[in-house]
């Protein structure tokens, strides 16, 4: 029994550590890539190729003065970054990174937990994040923050609907909510081949869900300075920052799990395939950021409700019909 607990704790520590390391280096990768897209070189001073940049960033952020605006709601102002960060990190608990490995004579799946409603769990966690943002915007008692908070609440709630509908096609095909089983169901053919529309919808809805360009309205800097985290500094700001990138990694990992066949792949071991596919997804998100302008608030809402939602519903209907006609399991 005690051995199981120790193994579990080690497993959580390893995966959490790798995840946070990924997040930290994602910032470096993004800055490097954006640099090259924009004919710059990106960070290069701290360590070889600027590889120590995330550490330097962290030290800098921590050493900054931690300001709380005098008229802010102190308790909520402090709570908001935690509400944003914790669910963002919790989401990775159910993501399967690979098949199984033998540790101490015990066969165990690579991943922290495998619950039969894994998909619902991820969605539940991602919708918790909006509270952090809305509260941060409101409790700062700053007009720009308030507008950022309001915008993001409206945006995240609107796009959650399309996001949920876009993956239902996958659930219909796999016949399960368990992420591990969904990956197993994609063994010969990944669902992106069967659900291309669903995949595109998922990409669009999820980049809105994590507020990336072209849907980065909550922190549209040319309008709202820094949006909901305008008043945040030091570690509290860093928590929002980490939450944002953690969400980006989670979304990419989810896209891989749901549509790109998860850890399935020839020759290489499972976790490596998973990492490669996730990296490709991340590259796509960064590339988009380097290319596109931003939607306006009303355009964003119109796009979400009048385009994404109907198409997602239609996609679901067609998938359901095909699954029903072909008699059960797709």
């Amino acid at each position, binding site marked *: 029994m005690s051995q199981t607990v120790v193994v579990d704790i080690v497993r959580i520590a390893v995966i959490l550590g790798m995840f946070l390391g990924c997040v930290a280096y994602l910032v470096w990768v993004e800055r490097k890539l*954006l640099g090259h*897209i*924009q*004919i*710059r070189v990106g960070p290069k001073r701290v360590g070889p190729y600027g590889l120590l940049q995330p550490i330097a960033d962290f030290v800098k952020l921590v050493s900054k003065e931690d300001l709380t605006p005098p008229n802010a709601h102190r308790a909520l102002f402090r709570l908001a970054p935690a509400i944003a960060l914790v669910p963002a990190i919790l989401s990775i608990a159910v993501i399967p990174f690979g098949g199984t490995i033998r540790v101490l004579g015990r066969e165990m799946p690579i991943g922290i937990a495998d619950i039969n409603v894994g998909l619902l769990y991820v969605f539940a966690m991602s919708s918790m994040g909006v509270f952090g943002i809305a509260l941060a915007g409101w409790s700062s008692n700053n*007009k*720009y923050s308030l*507008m950022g908070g309001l*915008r993001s609440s409206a945006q995240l709630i609107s796009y959650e609907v399309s996001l949920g509908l876009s993956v239902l096609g996958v659930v219909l095909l796999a016949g399960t909510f368990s992420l591990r089983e969904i990956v197993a169901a994609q063994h010969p053919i990944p669902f992106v081949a069967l659900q291309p529309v669903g995949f595109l919808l998922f990409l669009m809805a999820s980049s809105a869900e994590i507020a990336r*360009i*072209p849907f*980065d309205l909550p922190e*549209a*800097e*040319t*309008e*709202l*300075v820094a949006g909901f985290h305008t008043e945040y500094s030091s570690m509290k700001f860093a928590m929002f920052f980490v939450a944002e990138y953690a969400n980006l990694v989670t979304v990419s990992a989810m896209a891989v799990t749901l549509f790109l066949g998860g850890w399935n792949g020839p020759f290489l071991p499972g976790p490596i395939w998973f990492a490669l596919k996730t990296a490709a997804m991340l590259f796509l998100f960064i590339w988009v*950021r*380097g*290319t*596109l*302008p*931003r*939607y*306006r*608030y*009303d*355009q964003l809402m119109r796009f979400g409700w009048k385009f994404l939602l109907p198409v997602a519903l239609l996609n679901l209907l067609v998938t359901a019909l095909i699954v029903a006609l072909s008699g059960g399991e797709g």
Partner: protein
Amino acid sequence: MSEVRTEEMVLNMGPQHPSTHGVFRVELVTDGEIVTETRPHIGYLHRCFEKHAEHLQYTGIIPFTDRLDYLSGMNQNFGFVLAVEKLLGSEIPERAEYIRVIMAELNRIASHLMMIGHMGTDAGAITPVLYGFRDREYILDLFEEVSGARLLYNYYRVGGVIADLTPGFVEKTRKYLDYLERVLNEFDQLLSENKIFRGRTVGVGVLPPKVAVDYAVTGPNLRACGVNWDLRRDEPYSIYPRFKFDVVVGREGPGVVGDSWNRYWVRVQEIRESAKIVRQALDGLPEGDFIKAPKSIRPPKGSEVYHRTETPRGELGYYVISDGTPTPVRVKVRSPGFVHISAIPAFCTNMMVADLVMAMGTLDFVMGEVDR
């Protein structure tokens, strides 16, 4: 049941704000995301140019004109020396005329490149501004070669220019113009033809031609409203009549006449027109002196002049009064940016905050010349 009472919120944008293009402050009365009223405030960059000018000799004023609109210093120099030359009635060598036009038009290209890039930033695209900087860089290199400075050139002199073109300048400029053509297509792909960018600019911040004329809006902003007016053609100065170029006017196409899209598009096309002028000037560049300096710059007592030129931002006028001494009695600047800012409350109402940023950004004002 009584109606729900909602409050208007006054949002203070600037003077420190990422999108006000300098230290410009505007008070917005907002109803949710909708801006119902705008109140611009200026004066944060006031440096007493006009007062300084009353205490300096004519040549000493030229470097101060650079600092009016620091993105098109050559054009600011140009306007001032033309005004003084008109007072003196002095002759300028042929070669100097050509060099002046080449510099002014290259500077127009550089200035418009910055505007286009920053417009991308206003729309939320983070890359175009760096491409704009990259392409402007080559022009700055050229300017550095001839004038020694990259931003504040102090290159024009009464009677000509301070230094001749360096060897190889003509070839380098030609090469750059070829390169520019390709780059402009890149901008078209990144912005002009981008669906989101069009969604953000088409029909946004429409400035009706009548309002534009009433407020004396000039330059590309006026032409974007469909008013065909360009001082280089309609009130020619220097040697502009010798060159063939089109005056680009806003059109109904993807955009509505007078909207942000047309203000953008007019500038992209003007870069192409300026490139045409530079090419012609390079072809016709004569040999000879690059300056014929007057013995002393003492315009006759009581003489006064108003001379206006077309800068990248619009009509720049210098009103100079002389009392026969080497120092002017009064120098008044009519800056285009000042006028454009005054027009903001007239057409930037009942729009979303994001649209306001776009509409103001496309006016392309530089606070240096607004506050002076």
